């Protein structure tokens, strides 16, 4: 049984473009660009020098500080540059460029384990940290930090986030269908670390095939590491259900206090992709060097889910995937609601990039902004129960103090308000500006 969260919108899903397409084998590019800051927190520190040869999976930049993540070579080859380069999230960011060498074996040589019961909690956390795992849903928050709550905070509930509420994206859907058992194994590791009694796998009802696969796997699965109960929760599809605070409300009906974290209400939320990465890190000894992305949109010849090396340039990926069928008007890293539109194709895929959208001219109708008619659509859409239109006027009038008092900082830019606005006011722009000014 699931609960209701306030607000939300119902954009068309476009998921049928790719939701029945199995994840394609990893594409190995000739070069990768690995920005040092692909995660929330302090950028990683390079530990390799220019011209050095690196192997697949080798540590190339180490975590620096508590909230940070290590970075590994996603292909084997030569470090050809450590320089500023454009990324999907920053115009210029320090990145390590690796060029593949022909004689290098591009298969990752991991250490397979079948039994991990000997690992202690701390060893598991350290392994996850050293694998450079971050939240793969988009925010890219270092995962090990979420798994080591400060003293005094007990976590009783783990939620595997399979909502995948962004339209178009289907990578988590495919992982749940194809790697159900591995996801359960990953979940088992998390519950062991946290000692949580309850675990939920929350899936929106537009992915029933994933729910079915997970249910079958759950029936056949015997938990050895922890004694938590695992339930599959079917959620009613609504954007932004995959947002942490909203999925906690929908699954266990707890309200994360404003400005607080899920652990304040005893919850940890991990996306399906992250849970799978945890499985790979522990059972295969494999750092986060690959991820599944959805390549989709009206402009791409063949929409697909594909496993890619972190740092693959979008341009390389597009040509390898069969190219575009018409000129793209917009290229978006991520989903259509919260993704970031790119100005060029030569940007790398990051750890947190769950999809790349190629939108053609017809679909990219940028409608002119008109005046607010006070219809209240943004208010009924805002999952944080803010009043975007009034905040918009406060920001427009540079009345930032009032915007702060009216809670603009609670906005996490899901875009539900701007999606539903009949006057097509770019409300997220105003919220971003207001947040930057307080």
């Amino acid at each position, binding site marked *: 049984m699931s609960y209701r969260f306030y607000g939300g919108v119902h*954009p068309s899903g476009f998921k049928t473009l790719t939701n029945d397409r199995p994840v394609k084998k990893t594409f190995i590019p000739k070069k990768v660009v690995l920005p040092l800051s692909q995660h929330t927190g302090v950028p990683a520190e390079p530990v390799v020098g220019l011209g050095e040869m690196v192997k697949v999976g080798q540590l190339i930049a180490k975590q620096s500080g508590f909230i940070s993540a290590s970075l590994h070579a996603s292909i084997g080859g030569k470090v050809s540059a450590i320089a500023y380069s454009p990324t999907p999230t920053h115009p210029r960011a320090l990145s390590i460029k690796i060029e593949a060498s022909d004689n290098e074996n591009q298969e990752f040589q991991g250490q397979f384990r079948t039994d991990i019961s000997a690992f202690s909690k701390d060893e598991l956390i350290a392994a996850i940290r050293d694998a450079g795992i971050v939240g793969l849903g988009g925010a890219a928050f270092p995962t090990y930090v979420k798994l080591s709550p400060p003293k005094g905070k007990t976590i009783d509930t783990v939620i595997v986030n399979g909502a995948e509420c962004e339209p178009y994206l289907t990578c988590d859907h495919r992982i749940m269908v194809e790697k159900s058992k591995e996801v359960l194994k990953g979940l088992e590791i998390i519950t062991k670390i946290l000692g949580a009694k309850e675990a939920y796998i929350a899936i929106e009802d537009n992915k029933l095939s994933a729910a079915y696969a997970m249910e079958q796997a759950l029936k056949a699965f015997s938990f050895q590491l922890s004694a938590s109960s695992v339930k599959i929760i079917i959620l009613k599809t609504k954007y932004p259900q995959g947002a942490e605070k909203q999925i906690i409300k929908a699954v266990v009906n707890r309200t994360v206090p404003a400005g607080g974290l899920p652990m304040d209400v005893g919850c940890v939320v991990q996306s399906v992709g992250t849970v799978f990465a945890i499985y790979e890190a522990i059972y295969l000894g494999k750092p986060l060097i690959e991820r599944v992305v959805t390549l989709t949109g009206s402009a791409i010849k063949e929409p697909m889910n594909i496993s890619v090396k972190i740092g693959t340039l979008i341009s390389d990926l597009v040509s390898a995937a069969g190219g575009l069928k018409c000129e793209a008007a917009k290229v978006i890293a991520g989903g259509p609601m919260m993704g970031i539109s790119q100005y060029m194709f030569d940007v790398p895929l990051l750890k947190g990039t769950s999809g790349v959208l190629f939108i053609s001219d017809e679909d*990219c109708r940028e409608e002119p902004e008109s005046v607010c008619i006070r219809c209240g659509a943004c208010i009924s859409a805002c999952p944080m129960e803010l009043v975007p239109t009034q905040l918009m006027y406060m920001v427009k009038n540079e009345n930032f103090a009032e915007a702060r008092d009216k809670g603009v900082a609670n906005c996490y830019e899901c875009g539900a308000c701007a999606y539903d606005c009949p006057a097509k006011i770019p409300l997220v722009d105003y919220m971003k500006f207001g947040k930057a000014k307080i």
Partner: protein
Amino acid sequence: MSKPLTVSIGPHIKSPRTTKKIMWAVTIALIPAGAAGVFIFGLDALRVILVSIFAAVATEAIILKMRKKDVAAIWDGSAILTGLLLAYNLPPGVPLWLPVAGSIFAIAIGKQVFGGLGHNIFNPALAGRAFLMVSWPIYMTTWRQPRWAVDAVSGATPLAIIKNSEFVGMANASLWDLFIGNRGGCIGEVCVVALLAGAIYLLVKGYITWHIPFAYVATVALTSWAFNGTAGVFTGDALFFVLAGGLALGAFFMATDYVTSPLNSKGRIIFGVGCGVLTFIIRKFAGYPEGVCYSILIMNAFVPLIDRHTYPKWFGWIKK
């Protein structure tokens, strides 16, 4: 890549609903009531409607031009809607210069003076009607009975009759007559069933929410039942007071005007209750038999205050 890529902040997809679509949906929802009005009162009513719309759109175009705004904005439907609603609030037999004067006032003073669409405080159509009411009260209270009535040219509305007789039984219309529109009144307000059809369309499609109409109608029904009876408290004919006058038109189509009503549901309930209480007070105690127009206008003035005091507590709100 020859063509530059479009870069913008998300969301990169937008709902198909636009301001224009909303305005046209409300206009379409009002067509049954207008058609009924024309059927009941004859082609004079249609002339009033067309002249009113034309004057409203022309005024909007001229003022937009004067303000150096894009004149194409007249097709957003808001001026057409104002003209239409104003005509619905006029008696069917008025001389044609009256809707022209009303529309000019509604658009120029009611809307554009405040900065145009989205910025006006008062419902423009009602402002226009109030202006006509105080300027030419005789024309505005010369009613016609339906075409088929014996004395079709003059006569009073049911509310006006009971206002003067203090006795509901004297009203010249049964509840059924009120419901289907067999009575004297304004062009668009008489046929409640046609108004309801349009209102249901708007509600089902999500163009309006139930809060204002429900609060408004329920308040009028309760107060009338409690205090508007002839045999003491709780003897009023609630249904009569709900069906009579312009309540259906006002509650579903005028009070729900986005621009001049509160933003969130709590505020909308307060607004609806306020309209209901004022309507009752005007009908019961004031000189006018009908109070829908003025009560909505008065509550319009309170909207900024209501909005300020109903600002929601956001998700996870903690007391500071």
